Structure formats: C-alpha cells, structure tokens
C-alpha cells in the first residue's frame, strides 16, 4: 500500500506546449483521488506521468515515498485501466489477466489461483475462455479491471474507464469501482471529465483547468465552497447560476441596474453565484430581508420527475432554479427567485472566491 506525492510536476512537450504547469497533490494511502476537468486540462497527461508513460519535465512524482521519475512503468508497480480497455485482442480473458504476472515470473500455480480468485470477485469466472471480441462493453471493462487487480499493485490508475459505457452501466460500474477500491484498499488515481463520476467516487477531488489545479478537497467541500468561478460552474449539474455585478461604494449592483441589499465587501466582488437547489421561487410580494430576491420571468420548465428545473430570465442573465416535485409555474409567469444570503457565493475580478 502506498502514498502518491506529486511535487510541482510540469510537462512541456517538445513543441513548447505546456500541458501541465506545476501541480502538487498529496494522496494519502488507500484513498481514491479523482482528477476532473474539461478536455485538454492536462489531467490525462498527469496520470500518464504517474504511470511512467510520459516523461516528467520538472518536479517529482513519488510513490510510497520513493521518487520514481527515472523508473519505467513496469518497475513502478502500478496498474492502469485504459479508456478503450486495451485488452490483448488475441488472448483469452484468462491470458489477458495472467500476462502481467507471467512477465514478472510469478509461479504458474500462483498465477492460476490469483486469476481465478480475481475472476470470481469480478464475476468473470464463466468468461475466462472467451476472447475480448466476444465480450460486451461492460464485460471488457471488468476484464480490464481484473487485469489491474490481479497484479496487486501499489497504485491503480484509471483513465476515463467508464466513458465508453452506456449511462446505466456507467452508474453500476461506478458503484462497483468504489466498492472494490475500498475493499482492496489500494491507493488510486482516477481521471474523468464527468463531474458526477468525480463527485461520487472521490475521497479527494482535484479540479484542474488549463494545466493547473483549481481546487483540491473533499467532494462536498469543493461543491459547497468552490474556490473559483471555474470550479463553481464545472462542479454541479445544472451548473451554478452566475450574475455579473457592478460594484459601487453603496453596495453591489446587478447588471440590469438593480441594487441589491448587501453590504459592500473589502474585496469588491464582481460575480455573484448560487446553486439551482439553493434558490426557491415565490409568487408573493412580501419583503424577505437577508435574502437575494430577483424578479424573474419563467422561460421554460423541465419536469424531471422528482424535481423540476425552471429556466428564468432575471437581472439580464439566464438562471436555473431547482424545485422539488412539480413546478406550479409555467412559461411566461412572472415570479421572484429567492436565495438565502448564506447560500450565496461571491467571486472577485480574477474569478477567485471572496468570503
């Protein structure tokens, strides 16, 4: 079992492109760290540097306290699950799983018992004699997992392993991966662009953007206290509502000129945000002190079943409000959107959180 420590890791390609611009992450033993971000943010490159498939331009990667910059992927004792599974097409499931062990010179009977017990855990026992092309997507995914688990490595690396599965299977496998990881207690790094996957899987969530870490923390902390506008709009679906502010000495003013009843801050905030579920709507006109109240026009209603999303035009922006059950409002209704003061997020000129 092992920790993974990244210290100021950089990746500069020979073309001069800087894919990772100095990232430091410390992953404690047995924890699952999820790297999430839009495509091109450097998360996959970072993972491949941990794996040893990509050279490290600057900084250090340490596994179990030992710097592994100069060591190849084989000696790092890691196992990787690839996006397209990368199963050996000409080998049976059994051989796919056994291949890594054979290359390490593990005795035959030990390989056999390990492959069979891993197959049992993953419910692959009946498929050991099949070839990858005879398997469904979900089964291939399992084999790829099995190939990683059977080696009993120090670290698991997952490179968007669920992105080729359909939505239902993805949900199932997500839970399964989480359970397996917890049961096996292997330190893991998981790359995804899916914020839902990131939120549900992570012990530590690392949000990346443009080669830099935007925020690191427990998933719910990141959700509740996003460190920047980028994180606020990336984590959460639908994303956080953001309203532009023009500051003045008397207090913040919304883009459409409405002054709102909040004291001026030390650092002037230029963006105000609240999550769709932290707001409510009302048709009444009573005063609501200590809350943000926005007159709004309903533009569209999306009933999802257990909840509904109201898309409204307010203060010159479009905002989304989540209401539980069925919405009483219909398109065209005039109403007021109310968000409690403690649920508001303020961001400064640079897009950083202001508290």
């Amino acid at each position, binding site marked *: 079992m092992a920790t993974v420590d990244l210290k100021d890791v950089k990746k500069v390609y020979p073309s001069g492109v800087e894919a990772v611009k100095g990232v430091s992450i410390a992953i404690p033993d047995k924890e699952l760290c999820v790297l999430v971000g839009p495509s091109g943010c450097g998360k996959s490159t970072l993972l491949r540097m941990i794996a040893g498939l990509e050279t490290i331009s600057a900084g250090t990667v340490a596994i179990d306290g030992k710097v592994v910059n100069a060591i190849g992927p084989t000696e790092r004792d890691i196992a990787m699950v*690839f996006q397209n599974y*990368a199963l050996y097409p*000409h080998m049976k499931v059994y051989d796919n799983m056994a291949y890594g062990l054979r290359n390490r010179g593990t005795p035959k009977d030990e390989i056999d018992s390990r492959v069979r017990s891993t197959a049992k855990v993953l419910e692959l026992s009946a498929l050991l004699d099949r070839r990858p092309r005879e398997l469904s997507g979900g089964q291939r995914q399992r084999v790829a997992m099995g190939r990683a688990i059977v080696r009993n490595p120090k670290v698991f690396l997952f490179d968007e392993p669920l992105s080729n599965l359909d939505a239902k299977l993805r949900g199932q496998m997500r839970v399964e991966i989480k359970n397996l990881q917890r049961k096996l207690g292997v330190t893991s790094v998981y790359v995804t662009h899916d914020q839902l996957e990131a939120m549900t899987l992570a012990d530590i969530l690392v949000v990346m953007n443009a080669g830099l870490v935007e925020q690191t923390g427990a998933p719910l902390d990141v959700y509740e206290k996003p460190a920047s506008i980028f994180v606020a709009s990336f984590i959460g679906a639908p994303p956080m509502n953001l309203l532009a502010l023009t500051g003045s000495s008397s207090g913040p003013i919304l883009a459409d000129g409405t002054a709102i009843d909040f004291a001026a801050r030390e650092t002037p905030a230029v963006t105000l945000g609240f999550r769709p579920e932290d707001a409510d709507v009302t048709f009444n006109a009573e005063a609501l002190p200590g809350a943000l109240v926005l007159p709004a026009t309903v533009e569209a209603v999306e009933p999802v079943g257990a909840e509904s999303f109201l898309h409204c035009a307010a203060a010159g922006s479009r905002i989304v409000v989540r209401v539980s059950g069925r919405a009483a409002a219909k398109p065209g209704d005039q109403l007021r959107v109310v968000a409690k003061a403690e649920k508001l997020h303020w961001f400064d000129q640079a897009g950083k959180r202001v508290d």
Partner: protein
Amino acid sequence: MIGQSPLRTFIAHAVLILGILIVAFPIYYTFVASTHTLQTILRPPLPLLPGGQLWNNYSEALFGGIGRIGGVSVGQLLLNTTVMALGVAVGKIFISILSAYAIVFFRFPLRMTFFWLIFITLMLPVEVRILPTYKVMVDLGMIDTYAGLIIPLIASATATLLFRQFFMTIPGELVEAARVDGAGPWRFFFDILLPLSRTNIAALFVILFIYGWTQYLWPLLVTNSNDMNTIVIALRKMVSFADADTEWHLVMVTAMLAIVPPILVVVLMQRWFVRGLVESEK
C-alpha cells in the same frame, strides 16, 4: 445482387462461365498436351482429350532428366525453385517485419531518414541495380548458390511499408498496457505484435512466395549450371528454336508442374487470406 430475375441470373452465369473458360482453357490444353507423345503433339491438330501418356511423360520428366537441360530432372528444378521461393518469402517477411517494428515503435536518431531510405528503394526495381548486384554476388562467390538466388531479393520496401501501415493501426493504449504489464520490446514483439500480424504475414507469404516462384531475370543471371536452374528458367531453356529439337511433351509436363506449388500455396493459405480480409482483431 438485388434483382433475382432468371434472365439476370442467366446472364451473370454466362459471363462468369465464359470468363472461366477463357482463363482455364489454355491450362487445360497444356494438360492435354502433357499426356500425349511428342509425335502426336507435332502432328496437328492436337486432340482435345487427354492421351494415354500421362504416367510415362510425368515420370520421365520428374525422375528421368531432360536432355536439353543437361539431364536435370524436374524434381531437382522444383526443389531449387521451392528453396528460392520459400527463402525469398520467409526472408522478406523476417527482414521487413523487424524494420517496420523499429521504425514504428522506437524513437532513435535518423528514424525518418531510414524510413525514407527504405521508401526510396521502392523506386529502384531489381532490374535497375542488377549489374552492381551481380558484381557483388560474383565477388562473394555466390553464383550458382541458393544464397545467391535468395539474398539479393530479400530486402523489400513494399513489405516493410505494409507492416508499417499495419503497426500504425495498433492502438497506443495496447502498447502502453503491455508496458505497464511488464513486457519489454522482445516480449511485446513476440507475445502481441506477431500474433496480431498473423493474417498479414499469411497474406504476404502467399504474394511473396509466388513472386519468388516466378522470378525470371535474376535466376537467369545468377545460375549458370543446369542443376541450379529454377523451373521457369529451365522451361525457357527447354524450348529450342527448331520445333523438332524441342521435347514438347516434357515442356508441357514441366509447365503443368510449375503451376502446382503456387496453386497449393494459395489454396492452403486461402482460409487465412480470407480471415485477414474479414476480421480485424483490434
């Protein structure tokens, strides 16, 4: 394909049968001639049905030796040609798969230079460099040897490029998975690349075997003694300008026997050939 009207079916079959007849008739006629005595062949018209000399003619050619080529038997010619064709096919595949492996999967200085050097040789057919090659073979004492027949034909830009194209379709993730699984370059080559290339190798083997089997110019130059001739060269030597000098019945037998091995290779390898076209294991 779609329409199933009887007329269409009839026309389609008629065209196909006509095509087969045009291709097959000369071969059939050769076979017929190979079963008659020399006298029958020389006295036109040649019968359209096989004669009674099948066994005599074939055993005379295969085991007896043919006078016009110094008494060498067709058996010896078949052996020579088989050695050459196999040597060329196996050698070409061996060399080209290794060079393609190096060019695709390794980063070394002047990699692209080497690639282009190989590529450029495509523009230099055997005929263009035949004199210097001949001189080299003479200096190395390889005239009238199997090595002399095979080695100059082995280097193959075409096969190298073919393997290169195939290797480039192998997903990078597969290569990386093997690296993570602890497979070094040799392991990766033997455990993963070679099995995946099976169908390509089979297809290439068929093509190259026939290429080696039908070589004319190079064997003509590099073999002087009759017992090192390949079957195609010997066939040419058997035919004299004067009709009467030519043992036509044996020429026909030799021609028939020269066709057999390539056909065997194609038929036996056909299963692989088709598999290579139908399925892609990736």
